[in-house]
């Protein structure tokens, strides 16, 4: 056991972060490398100031190490698909951000941008099978794209069209594709933990060896559902993986002001559940950590927790502080612009791109072609959305139950004027 501070760890050990863990009774069982991190964690800091998050910057490149090697050994085709989805996710959200900024487009509703966190969704999903489950959050566009979500349906849903992922009922915060194992985004902080644990139990009953992943934020880790879901998953050795995306922010609340421990992964250490903290902007580390958790899950050994350190580039919701054609949101009072700039400089996609090139896993022109294809897919999805019809007003009474409609009690005598 060695004791070093977090930043030094991520700088020098790099992808070893994928298996870095604080003292955990169970770490030994997972075969992971055990590293004790010193008091540099962000939690429990009453004198917190926004610039604090600068202390936790990852290195600018995906560092050499075990995780990088493991990831590089993944079939090239899979790596390219992963890259493509990361780019699609980035371009789709960036385009949507520009559309939201342009008032004349008439977009409305919730819109939580995932940009900056793409290595997490994609590193995790790269380690899953197609029939594994994911459960997402309010900030989940990127999770959907990573799991193969359909951009046409997603765009149409943002436009609240009948052709949308949820036929216009859900919007940005509730998109779903059940047949791809996407059990949906969710607007309630903490809900994903229970749904994923329930889905994991279902896999156990059906003996399918499927795994269920709950994505959630640093804020969600304080939900009463979190510890309960992990504890019950440990109790019943469920094939569940809890991915905590620690972007240091909960709306405008800095993570350090509400977290009593140095790392969020500490919460579950006492349960004997492998709980690691990794560099969430490093797709190789995310893949490797998830791969290990998946193996454990499929072997019937129970759940794992992966805390992924990252940062969101935009505001909590909407487009305050953002500009069309430019990355990041600035001038927000709960964080420093310097932090945003530094984290943009650790762009997980740029890091992945460099990795692919340096390891000669792809050529520049190959990647450029993927980039261009992604842009075309994004653009055509928006055309699809625009062309699609709005839901009919009275369809609001449908889909409450499997069959039929509920009564239109907004009208006197529960009948619309025309029929009254």
């Amino acid at each position, binding site marked *: 056991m060695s004791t070093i501070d977090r930043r030094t760890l991520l700088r020098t050990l790099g992808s070893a972060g994928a298996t870095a863990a604080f003292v955990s009774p169970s770490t030994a069982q997972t075969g992971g490398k055990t590293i004790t991190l010193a008091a540099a964690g962000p939690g429990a800091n009453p004198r917190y100031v926004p610039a604090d998050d600068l202390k936790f910057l990852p290195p600018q490149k995906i560092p050499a190490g075990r995780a990088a090697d493991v990831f590089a050994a993944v079939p090239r085709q899979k790596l390219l698909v992963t890259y493509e989805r990361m780019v699609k996710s980035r371009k789709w959200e960036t385009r949507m951000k520009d559309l939201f900024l342009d008032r004349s487009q008439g977009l409305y509703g919730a819109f939580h941008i995932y940009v900056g966190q793409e290595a997490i969704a994609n590193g995790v999903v790269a380690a899953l099978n197609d029939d594994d*489950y994911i*459960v997402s959050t309010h900030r989940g566009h990127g999770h959907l794209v990573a799991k193969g979500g359909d951009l046409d349906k997603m765009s149409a849903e943002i436009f609240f069209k009948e052709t*949308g*992922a*949820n*036929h*216009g*009922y*859900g919007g940005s915060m*509730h998109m*779903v594709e*059940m047949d791809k194992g996407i*059990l*949906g985004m*969710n*607007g*309630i902080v903490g*809900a994903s*933990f*229970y*749904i*994923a*644990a*329930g*889905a*994991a*139990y*279902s*896999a*156990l*009953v*059906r003996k399918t060896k499927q795994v*269920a992943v709950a994505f959630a934020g640093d804020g969600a880790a304080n939900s*009463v*559902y979190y510890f*309960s*879901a992990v*504890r*019950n998953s440990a*109790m*019943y050795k469920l094939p569940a993986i809890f991915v905590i995306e620690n972007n240091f922010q909960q709306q405008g609340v800095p993570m350090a002001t509400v977290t009593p421990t140095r790392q969020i992964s500490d919460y579950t250490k006492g349960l004997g559940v492998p709980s690691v903290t990794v560099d969430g902007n490093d797709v190789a580390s995310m893949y490797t950590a998830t791969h290990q958790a998946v193996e454990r899950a499929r072997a019937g050994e129970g759940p794992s927790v992966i805390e992924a350190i990252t940062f969101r580039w935009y505001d909590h919701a909407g487009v305050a502080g953002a500009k069309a054609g430019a990355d990041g949101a600035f001038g927000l009072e709960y964080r420093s612009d310097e932090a945003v700039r530094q984290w943009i400089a650790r762009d997980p996609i740029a890091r992945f791109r460099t990795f692919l090139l340096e390891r000669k896993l792809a050529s520049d022109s190959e990647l450029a072609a993927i980039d261009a294809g992604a842009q075309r897919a994004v653009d055509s999805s928006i055309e699809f959305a625009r062309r699609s019809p709005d839901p009919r007003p009275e369809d609001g009474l*449908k*889909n*409450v*139950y*499997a*069959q039929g409609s*509920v009564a239109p009690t907004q009208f006197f005598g529960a009948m619309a004027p025309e029929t009254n």
Partner: protein
Amino acid sequence: MAKKTYAFAVLEGVAQEMRKNPTLCFCYQFETPVARLPGGEILDLAKEFGTPRTSGRWGWPIDEAWYAGWAAGMAMTGCPAIARIPYQAAIFPAEFVLHQIAKLRSMTGGQANLPLVLWIGGAGRRMGMAGQHTDVGEEAFYAYLPGLKVVAPSNAYDAKGLMIAAIRDPDPVVFRDYAEVRAGQQPDVPDEAYEVPIGKAAVRQPGKDLTLVAWAPATVDVAQALPRIAQAGISAEYIDPRTIKPLDVETLAASVKKTGRLLVVDHGNHTNGFGSHVVAEMAQKVPGAKVARIAFPDAPGPGAKSMISWMRPDAPKIVDAAQKLMRL
């Protein structure tokens, strides 16, 4: 067809459905699913289906919101689920039910299926337990939630039939399970599986002077009151809605139209108990009808027998109310 306890009847229904559907699962806490017939027949679902399909011989931890979360994740991925919530915890899963179980179908535009049953205990207005262990009427809250169905059987026959109907229903159903109903007189219960249709009220007794409506625990007191109401020369049409949501408004309204008078007996609290909704619906559907309700007062049930038995809307009070309503 045989005399069965309420507990046996419901578990028999669950077991029959679990035999048919190999992915149907059942979780519970300390209420291990074992029931015996006087004849000696034993139903032991923990033994028959084992884990993980049941919570096993010992049951699950005291963490009831989790049961609802589990059921949701299960149901969405091909394992219909029954989650039994002890009565003390009737409201623990409320948030998860409101925002997930009840809403997911609508929020996903119809794509999320949640075939699950929340089997939620009910305490009853009993002496000696006090406050937290004397509640009745949480169905009022669950009925408020769009996307849920709610049933509240008042005997073993309906309980088995409604449980089976709830399991087979593609939507989430709250099944209220009141101690006083379990302990009451039971009709014969068929051995085979059958459904009592969700959404259909039972006209328990035809009559012409007034319509008496009661469900679940209040039916115990109404049963005692009925002969005395008849003795008082009043012909009461007695209806047990059985399903709280969707409420069988047609059957109720037809009766109130005929009798012109409605008396709702509710063991729930007065303010915004489900009885309020029944009265409101009838007042609107049958203008001019005389509507009334007696309910448990807006107070937690105190422990002392002297207090809680005076507060219970019991048979003498029901008879008195019927007579007064006739004089209105």
